[in-house]
Structure formats: structure tokens, C-alpha cells
């Protein structure tokens, strides 16, 4: 109890220093894409204390006298982008010792000064799900972060739920990435068996805790790995499941059925083959779209139309950068290429904002421009799906964290001498990264 209290106080003080933006900012005459409603051709966005206080047509929003007025004529404003699958920050999750390591927290490995986060801002990203790699059946706990300015340690990036708990999911993977020599599985059948055995252990662990009914004598010995899995079983920790092939997707739906966990399917290269099944299960998909198929057997059937096919089947679709597989600065390319291949524009815009927020249980706070939500938004020079459009500014919780007109920020946006030196992610057991 004492620990929780201390953490709570620390949390409040961090929030206090990081987004104390008491000034009111009014962005006037902008084209506004709120995501939650129709586009506003000429509108006003009003933000104060890190929150959105008004959004609407220019005629409908009263701008207080003390507000800092920003003329955003000719510019487009939309919510900060949400990446549901990123490896930024020089992450290192599970190591090579075992295929299932739910005890590992990826946030114990993140360098908040990594230049990758500056590039993410330049791409308009404000919230990430940072994950360990896919070289394991289960490579550890992921962390949902808000890319606040001035961060000194990972705590400054944390998003916390109503109880003050650090938010994050559980990274799992099936298919070939997690198959190799023992103790790792050598086949798909073994992969599923190992996962099932571990979740059955977690069920037993949970049942012991329930039976103990608060009696410390009867409590099982603490196991931080099983604790993480119990959170999965209870639905407070969502499984983010790397998967490509259609049969691997079906395996996940089967495991989900058996253990009742909440899951987001990631990559989903062959999702177009089982779109109806995914829709029927009501499972959301975070899709990756890269410039060509192949590079590994499982991605040979990757197509640009996956987003559209899933959308039409009724599946909630997000995209993700998988940075460094793709570059956070170019995140808009992915929904735009999906729209090119038949996805609706509305679903494309939603896929990098509100859809992601829903997958991370954050849709009450981020993902759209609505009164009361966090003031996370971006200013664009033009249409989000045009190659020529630039992210001009990125704001997180009412604070400007990226300004393309600033030479230092611009260096990270376009690259150049001195823009490099970011830390590379650690992906256990791979030579060439992961996907």
C-alpha cells in the first residue's frame, strides 16, 4: 500500500512538470479532421491545461481573450498519430534463454533520448505501443507511451490507467520467427502446445490466489511472469500477437477461445484470406504494409489490399510502423497505400488514430479531437494522404514537441549529418531485425 502511494505521488509530480500548460492556445481557420465526426473545412481548436476544451467551426467556438491565437489557415489539424507496434528506444526484451518470458518488461530497456523518438514526432506520432521483438512465443510486456517533451526517464512517457498502473500489453508471436532450436519450439504444433501449457499454469496460479482469499499463508509464491499472464487472463493486459500466415491467425483465434484473452492481431499479412473468421471473432487487426511482399516465406502473400478487405469484413483496422521496419516519419504512407488499394479514406484516417487508441484501451483519452481528450494533435501542410504533405507541428498534451521550422527539429524530420546515432533495437536471435 505504501509503495502504491509513493508511486502515485511521484506520478502526480511528473505529470505536473511535464504538461503544465496553463496557457490557452487557439488554432484558427484550420481544416480540422476530428476523426470522431465530419471534417470541418474552417474550424477552431482550443486547448488548455493539456486538454482539448473546444473544437468546431470557426463560427461556433468562442475564443477567450487571453488565448494565444495561431492562424492555421491553409493547414490541416488532426489527432496525433498512434502507432500500435513500435520498437523505438533501443529496446531489449526477452533474451535467448527461453521462448516464453512474461516476466520481462520492455520499459526497463528504453532510452528516452533516442533520436528515434524525435523522428516519431516529425512523423506526427504522439502515442506508441513499444514492444519487444517477435523472436519468442512470448517476449515480454509491452508499454504504451505518450511521447511527452522533456522526458528524462521512461516514467515520463508512461500512460497509467485509472488505478495508476503502467499501461501495456503482452507481446506474443507465432509462425517462423519464434521457431528455432530447443528450448524454442521447432514446429507450429509445439509452439501452440508450449503456449497452452504456460497459460494453464497461469490459470492454476490465479486459482490459488483466488482460493487464498487474501490469506498470506495460503498465497502461492510470487512469480512475476505468471502475474503478467494472470493480467492477460483477466483481460487487463491485451495480447499483441505477431502473426502472418492465415493458419497462424486461426491458431491465435483458437487460443483466444480457450483462454479468453483479449488480443490484437499484428502484421496479419494473410488476413485477407480469413477476414470473415477474424470479423466473426471480433478481433481487431494492426496491419503492416511494406513496399514489396517476401523477405520471408510468411510474407510472400502480403498485399496492399489487406486493410480494405478487413475493413469491408467489419474488422477494426489499425496500421503500425514496426519502426525500424518502416520509418515513423513516413507513417502516413501506410494508410495512404491501403486507400490506394481500396480501403475507405475514413477507415484509413481512423487506422492511425482512433482505431489504435481503441486497441490500446485509450480511446477515452486520445485518438480524436473531442472536448476533454488530451491535446495531442498535429498540424499538416496539406492532405494527410499526399506524399507532398509535411507534418509542420506536433503537440502532446498541449505542448509543442516538434516544429518543422526549427532547424534542430527539421534535421530529424529530413535527416542529415548529426541526425543519426540512435540506438539499435535488440532482437534476440535474429541477424536482420524482425517483423
Amino acid at each position, binding site marked *: 500500500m505504501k509503495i502504491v502511494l509513493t508511486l502515485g505521488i511521484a506520478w502526480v509530480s511528473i505529470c505536473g512538470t511535464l504538461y503544465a500548460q496553463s496557457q490557452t492556445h487557439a488554432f484558427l481557420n484550420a481544416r480540422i479532421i476530428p476523426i470522431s465526426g465530419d471534417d470541418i473545412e474552417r474550424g477552431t481548436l482550443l486547448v488548455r491545461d493539456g486538454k482539448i476544451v473546444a473544437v468546431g467551426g470557426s463560427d461556433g467556438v468562442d475564443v477567450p481573450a487571453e488565448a494565444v491565437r495561431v492562424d492555421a489557415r491553409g493547414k490541416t489539424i488532426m489527432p496525433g498519430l498512434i502507432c500500435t507496434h513500435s520498437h523505438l528506444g533501443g529496446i531489449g526484451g526477452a533474451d535467448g534463454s527461453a521462448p516464453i518470458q512474461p516476466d520481462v518488461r520492455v520499459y526497463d530497456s528504453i532510452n528516452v533520448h533516442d533520436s528515434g523518438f524525435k523522428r516519431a514526432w516529425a512523423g506526427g506520432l504522439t502515442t506508441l505501443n513499444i514492444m519487444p521483438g517477435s523472436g519468442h512465443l512470448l517476449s515480454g510486456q509491452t508499454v504504451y507511451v505518450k511521447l511527452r517533451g522533456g522526458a528524462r526517464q521512461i516514467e515520463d512517457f508512461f500512460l497509467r490507467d485509472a488505478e495508476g498502473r503502467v499501461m501495456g500489453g503482452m507481446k506474443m508471436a507465432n509462425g517462423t520467427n519464434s521457431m528455432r532450436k530447443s528450448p524454442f519450439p521447432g514446429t507450429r504444433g509445439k509452439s501452440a502446445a508450449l503456449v497452452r501449457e504456460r497459460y494453464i499454469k497461469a490459470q492454476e496460479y490465479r486459482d490459488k490466489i483466488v482460493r487464498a482469499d487474501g490469506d498470506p499463508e495460503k498465497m502461492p509464491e510470487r512469480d512475476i511472469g505468471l502475474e503478467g499472464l494472470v493480467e492477460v487472463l483477466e483481460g487487463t493486459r491485451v495480447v499483441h500477437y505477431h502473426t502472418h500466415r492465415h493458419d497462424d491467425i486461426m491458431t491465435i483465434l483458437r487460443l483466444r477461445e480457450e483462454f479468453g484473452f483479449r488480443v490484437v492481431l499484428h502484421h496479419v499479412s494473410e488476413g485477407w484470406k480469413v477476414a470473415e473468421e477474424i470479423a466473426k471473432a471480433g478481433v481487431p487487426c494492426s496491419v503492416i504494409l*511494406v*513496399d*514489396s*511482399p*517476401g*523477405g*520471408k*516465406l510468411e*510474407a*510472400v502473400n502480403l498485399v496492399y489490399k489487406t486493410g480494405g478487405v478487413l475493413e469491408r469484413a467489419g474488422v477494426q483496422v489499425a496500421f503500425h510502423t514496426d519502426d*525500424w*521496419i518502416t*520509418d515513423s516519419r*513516413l507513417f*502516413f*504512407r501506410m494508410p*495512404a*497505400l491501403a*486507400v*490506394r488499394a481500396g480501403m475507405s479514406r475514413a477507415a484509413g484516417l481512423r487506422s492511425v488514430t482512433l482505431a489504435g487508441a481503441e486497441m490500446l484501451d485509450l480511446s477515452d483519452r486520445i485518438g480524436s479531437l473531442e472536448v476533454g481528450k488530451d491535446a495531442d494533435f498535429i498540424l499538416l501542410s496539406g492532405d494527410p*494522404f*499526399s*506524399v*507532398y*504533405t*509535411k507534418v509542420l507541428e506536433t503537440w502532446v498534451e498541449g505542448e509543442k514537441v516538434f516544429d518543422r521550422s526549427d532547424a534542430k527539429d527539421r534535421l530529424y524530420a*529530413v*535527416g*542529415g*549529418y*548529426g*541526425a*543519426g*546515432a*540512435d540506438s*539499435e533495437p535488440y532482437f534476440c536471435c535474429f541477424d*536482420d*531485425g524482425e*517483423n
Partner: protein
Amino acid sequence: MMRMMGRVMGRQSWTLSLCISGFLLSSGSVVSGQVAIKGRQVHTMEGAVIENGVVVIRDGKISAVGRADRVQIPAGFRVLEASVVTPGLIDAHSTVGFSGIFNHQHDQDQLERSAPVQPQLRAIDAYNPREKLIDWVRSFGVTTLHTGHAPGELISGQTMVVKTRGDTVSEAVMVEAMAVAATLSQSARKSKDKSPGSRGKMMAMLRAELIKAGEYLEKIENAEEDKKPSRDLKLESLGRVLRQEAPLMVTAYRAQDIASALRLGREFDLRLWLDGASESYLLIDEIKAAGVPVILHPTMMRSVREQENASFETAGILRAAGIPVTLQSGYESYVPKTRVVLFEAGIAAANGLGFEGALSVITIDAAQILGIGDRVGSLAVGKDGDVALYDGDPFEYTTHCIGVVIEGEIVYDGSR
């Protein structure tokens, strides 16, 4: 429009026409359909954009280009239409056809790791014309590829130029032996006690090999008939480099390595191509003075390790400085297995290169740098009938390539 036209000739009938044409023409080039392509905008790359233009292709070659009201489309020609018509795109450096889609040992022929210097490896002996990624890049408008052995060894082998069609290498090939590919970057460095293990050693080895090749040439030219050295494929290939019959394409990223490549070029009076060259913006004057073209890295290359200082703006900077520059899809070891040069040019277009500049670097500029400008790279009478059709600005994310024509043959109908 293209979507509604008749079915593209299937592979079988195409093969048939190739057989017939092979019989008729010793050169191996293909007699193809007679096609006229109408475009709301026709980018010929030979002057101003033609509004409402038409390109007529007869027997595989462009026979007329101009405004639709001035060019007669001959009777019986198939007519295609698009908003935007461009020359078929040229990817100035790729490994497609060598580095296959599956990324398994059996389809990876881009790099032989058994020795650091193997200029004798011919590209024609490894190119797989049925590789799926050839069709993939073609579906975005790419009709010509400079492809071959990938960077990665000090001298990895030879490269070639192909058209993105053909069932055999001889049907695909345009230039059998193009460049010899050398690498001055981390990827050529060996570990432990193997050479080259350092930057200094890489240069020392390259110099020694070129000196040896020079001596070999000398002996062949001057020695009496009975004292001529026996044939050495490795030295023959390097001899072509020394005689400037083949460019030495040096892949280097950091400024110091680019400077080393220029030093090597000066010492041996080579025809040099800089490849990758992510820090080339630091050596503008030196590269310009050397008269060396740059086959720049993919604009979206991951900026890590030696490539950490890459910039989206480099193509624009080099072109503005008057350095011949072109773009490439490069080599990818994982996912995606290839990039698409159209996309790379699009990002460059939006970052200083501009629309016209970006289209130039993947058409006419690429053709001139590769020395194939007499056949491809622009829409001009007498050149190959290689054309790409789009339903909008080719660089926009949401634009579709709706057709591709190679030497008058419709090889892609926009159906992907």
C-alpha cells in the same frame, strides 16, 4: 480505361511471339504489337510536358510523339489512355532477379561470400527472369533494371541491365556486362584474422588487384605469342575496368569512404560510379570535380549504422549542384525484399527534388548515367517503346499505375 481493354497477352502466347520474333531477328529484340498511348499529360523528358499527347509505337520502337491533334494514330493500332504517361521507369541499381522473394538460400544469388574479390562473376549466369519481384516492380512502371551482384564483398561481381520481361535471360538482357560492383563499407569487412578487416586494408587490396590487372593487360598486349599469360577471368574483368570499358561501381556511405573511392578513381583513372553515398552532401565539390555520377541510396533507406546520416534531401541537393544523380531500390536483406524506385523518387520529389527532377532521375538521368540513353529514358522517336501509364501524379501514394508497355508489348494491365 486500361482496365476495360482486352486481356493482356498471356505468357504462353507471348512466348510464342518471342519464338517467332527470335526467328525473324538475330538481335533477339521482339516484334510487338502496334500501340498508341494517349495521355492527358505526356512527360516525354525531352522538353515541355505535352498536354493531350500521344505516343505511337510501331514494331517496338517509338514512331511518333506529339499533341493528339497533330499525330495520326495509324489504323489498326491498339489505343491505351491514361491521365499521366511517362517513359518506362529505370531502377538504376537493384538486385531483383538475384535476390528472390523467398529469402531462402535457394533464391539468393546476389552475393558469393567465398572470397572478397570476385569480379569474374557474370550477372547473366545468375539472373532469374521468372522471379516474382520482377513482376512486382514492373507493376509500378519499372521497365528497366540495372541489377546484379549486390554490395557486400570488396568486389562482389558484375552487374547487367535488363528489361523487366522475358522468360530467359537472353530475352530480358539489354547490357550483358555493365559495371563491376565494389564495396567500401562495413559489410565488406571480415572478422577475426580474415582480410579485409579494416578500411585501410580494403583500399590496399583493391589497389593491389587493379595493379595486378594492369600488369596482366600489359603482358597480353606486349608479350610475344608464346609468352602470353594464360587467361584469368578475374583479371580480364578488372582489365575492362582499367580500360574504362566497365565502370567500377563503389558502394560507400560515409564521407570518408566516398573520398577513398574518389582517390582510387584518380589513381587508376577509372570510370567511377558512386553508389549509396548517403554522406555525399558533405563532398559536393569533390564529387563534382571528379565528374562522378551518384546512384543514390533509396530515399527511405533505414538511417542506421553507416547510413545514420542519410537525408531525404540528398537527391535534390546533388541535382541542384549539377552532379548527375539517379535513384535506386538497392538491396534489401529482409522485409520488404525489394523497394520500389517509384516510391523512393516520390519521397525525394517531396523533399527538394520536385516533380520534374524526381521523374528525371528515374528516367532520362538514369539512362544517361547507365549509358543506355540511346534506347530508353525518354519518349522520343526511335527509342524503345517503353511506357508507364498512371491515373494521376505517379508519385502520389494514392495513384495507380494502370499500364506498362515494353517495346510495344502490354506487359501489365493495372490488374494487381
